[in-house]
């Protein structure tokens, strides 16, 4: 807390010190303005506002167009954005934000730009929480009790209960009161969702008939005009051609390079491959409703039986980290002291024997006449090629220890019903993507067992339940870390999943782009600082 207030004060100092100079305008940091950046996206965005949109392509656009009350810098620390400073009451329930007075909304066509005020913040919160607004954000902001406007440039949030790291949650993007045509709730029918108005470094200019999205630098961006003149988001229908498009200069950047194309770009001096962590991991999840899988020795045997490193190396060029537990390895909650189980087929067989299984005449392990034959349900996703290899390898590894796996591929929506509603599976293959809160409560708490709940495998352990609740309630970061490390150790041992890996994402871009810093999942958070040297601007 102390650190942030120091930052806020020094910013104040600048504003007060130069009252006549509007901070909007060029950055004056000695780096050149100009140039265009075309980046390739796999698939097209749905909506372009920060509230109704719910996929990554849209998220990246909104990151360029909108700003939050606070931002997060490259060191993951909280910095002022639309709010220039803030205060927290002693009990941690009341947060007051003092807003910048020099922020203007992007101009609407044929209209004067309007100033950003506290009304917009209140409006954003209210529209976000309206029951008729469908947004993934709602669950994240249920901890707020109410929001009040204190003056044109001050807002006060009252929380239901104090929570840890509350400040980071105020990085939600603010939308203008004069934006949506319906001022109560926001649906995808509202013209605003395709013609967003923000306060961010880039203004949405046009969407071409090919759904290419053209964004131009906001001359009066409050942190100083972004260096690169134009961002163009280009949609591609096939992931395999994105790298080719980059190599033929059809685009300057690929947000996420297909893992199998990484070596090709690595050898090419014209391009830079920049790794970034995604808070995500893949796993095989077990259905504990099946009595055969209710025994933790069986689940652990499966984990011993698969050679995860070999799969990672051969299917993803080794670009990732094998994990041992339920947190993403980029997260502060991950327990590095817990080592992933090694590949050991002998040990796997020994564990299965210990659990009462013996090899039958057909080589398949059985117990009390019940064969260890299981169904594995896999969703057909966009990047199904690598997934296919992983599940077939899994099937093969388990065959070697006497387990018969029947792989069934299902279409994405159908798979979700199978896994989360009907629970008609023995094993599923899937991945989780996390935000920075490292909250796993919905995955393993026994209260989360049921239709459309995330504890699909019906894992239930009172000790884990207790730790999850304790972790949620504590306000002490170190204490929460300790609890999460303990959770990690228990879940690694209980193996409700065979935890696989967190893949390293690579962004590939032309080396003319300089000072590129990438936010793990929002991606473009620092794009206003990127620049292209004058000779390369063409």
């Amino acid at each position, binding site marked *: 807390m102390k650190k942030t207030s120091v930052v806020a004060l020094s910013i104040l100092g600048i504003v007060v010190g130069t009252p006549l100079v509007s901070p909007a305008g060029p950055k004056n940091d000695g780096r050149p303005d100009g140039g265009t950046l075309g980046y390739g996206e796999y698939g097209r965005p749905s909506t372009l506002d920060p509230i109704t949109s*719910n996929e990554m392509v849209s998220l990246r656009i909104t990151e360029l167009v909108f700003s939050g009350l606070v931002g997060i810098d490259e060191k993951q620390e909280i910095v002022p954005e639309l709010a220039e400073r803030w205060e927290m009451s002693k009990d941690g329930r009341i947060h007051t934000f003092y807003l910048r007075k020099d922020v203007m909304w992007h101009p609407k066509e044929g209209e004067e730009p309007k100033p950003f005020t506290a009304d917009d913040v209140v409006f954003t919160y209210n529209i976000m929480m309206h029951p008729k607004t469908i947004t993934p954000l709602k*669950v994240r902001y249920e901890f707020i009790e109410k929001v009040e406007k204190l003056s044109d440039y001050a807002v006060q949030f009252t929380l239901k209960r104090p929570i840890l790291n509350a400040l980071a949650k105020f990085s939600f993007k603010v939308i203008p009161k004069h934006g949506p045509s319906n001022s109560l709730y926001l649906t995808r029918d509202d013209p605003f969702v395709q013609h967003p108005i923000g306060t961010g470094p880039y203004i949405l200019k046009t969407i071409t*008939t*090919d759904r290419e999205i053209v964004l131009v630098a906001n001359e009066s961006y409050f942190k100083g005009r972004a260096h690169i003149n134009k961002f163009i988001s280009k949609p591609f*229908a096939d992931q395999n*051609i994105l790298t080719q498009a980059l190599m033929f200069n*059809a685009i300057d950047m690929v947000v996420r390079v297909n893992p199998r194309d990484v070596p090709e770009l690595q050898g090419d001096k014209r391009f830079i491959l920049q790794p970034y962590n995604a808070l995500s991991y893949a796993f095989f999840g077990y259905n504990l409703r099946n009595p055969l899988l209710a025994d933790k020795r069986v689940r652990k045997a499966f984990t011993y039986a698969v050679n995860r490193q070999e799969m990672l190396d051969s299917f993803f060029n080794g670009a990732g980290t094998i994990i041992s537990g339920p947190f993403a390895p980029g997260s502060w909650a991950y327990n590095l002291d817990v080592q992933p189980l090694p590949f050991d087929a002998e040990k796997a067989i020994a564990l299965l024997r210990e659990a009462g299984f013996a090899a039958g005449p057909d080589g398949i392990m059985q117990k009390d006449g019940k064969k260890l034959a299981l169904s594995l349900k896999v969703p057909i996703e966009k990047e199904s090629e690598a997934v296919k290899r992983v599940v077939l390898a899994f099937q093969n590894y388990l065959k070697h220890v006497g387990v018969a796996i029947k792989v069934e591929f299902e*279409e994405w929506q*159908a798979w*979700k019903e199978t896994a989360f509603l009907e629970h008609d599976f023995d094993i599923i293959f899937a991945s989780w993507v996390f935000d920075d809160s490292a909250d796993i409560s919905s995955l393993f708490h026994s209260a989360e067992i049921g239709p459309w709940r995330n504890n699909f495998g019906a894992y239930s352990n009172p000790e884990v339940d207790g730790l999850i609740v304790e972790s949620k309630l504590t306000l002490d970061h170190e204490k929460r870390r300790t609890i999460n490390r303990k959770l990690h150790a228990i879940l690694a041992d209980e193996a409700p999943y065979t935890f696989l890996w967190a893949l390293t994402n690579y962004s590939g871009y032309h080396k003319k782009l300089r000072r590129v810093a990438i936010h793990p999942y929002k991606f473009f958070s620092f794009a206003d600082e990127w620049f292209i040297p004058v000779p390369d601007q063409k």
Partner: protein
Amino acid sequence: MKLAAIRPITLALSRELVLTALLLLGVSLVVFVILYLAPGDPFSVLLEGQTLSHEARAGIREALGVPKTWYAQYLSWLGGLLRGNFGTSMRTGLPVFGEIVRVGLSTLYLTLGSMLVTLLIAVPIALHSSVRGATALNWPLTMLAYLVSALPVFWLGYVAIYVSIHQFGVFPLISRVSTSPEPAWLYSLLPICVLGIGNGTIGEVVRYLREEMSRVMAEDYIRTARAKGASVWRHAFKEGFLIPMTEIIAAKIPFILGGAVIVEQVFNWPGMGRMAWQAAQDRDFPVIMGIAMIAAMWVRVGSLVQRVVYVVVNPRASRERRGVGRAE
């Protein structure tokens, strides 16, 4: 045109229009029921990316004001359609009709272009072999046409991309309206040629046209024309060329549209096929329904044009058909 020629056309047309309306109604009902029965919930695309909860799922229909039963949903969709409203996309919130018109034009460009390519290849081969019989020149060409027709279009597409990138150093997947220095239409040649060659119709056009042409050539009136020294071609044109051509084109529209779905995907072509593919993945039913309607209409218009040509060329045909209609 004489009045006598117009009357049968209007009669034939109005009959066809009624049939078209019934057909579209049938198509819409079948597609809707299939969508309804298919696994997966169209509304879950709105919830993608958030933790699942039963309440959110239940609440979403209420929030959007969606009728509960499938037939009420269908009727409300149909009601909208009759008022000229195709609805809005679940995913993007954009009006479906405007979106389909936008991408439909580029699909039209692709399909018409590829049809032209098909005909440019097939017609000369067919005509040559029907007039001259099997010769050393046209027999291998005919065989080649059959062979090419059998190539799967996605394979041909990837081969074409591979060759143009690695042999010619040209990247063929830049969108048509992008700001690249080369003329954009140049890039659209490749997908058009691939679909024209790979849609599997060349072989059939060759065979059908050759047979029809040979049949007509053997007719008495052609022999008469030939005997009196008149132009055989002019006499054979209507029955031997125009009618079979329109027939085969009308019959092949669905196949070309199907091929377009794949070609658009492979070549990053912003058309209706790609939109249909995306919509199917998202269960975006207003878009799927809209595309199904437009595609059905398209196929129907193709066969309507064929009928009109047939009647114009041969007014007697419509009278015959009306006779049959009365007998039923």
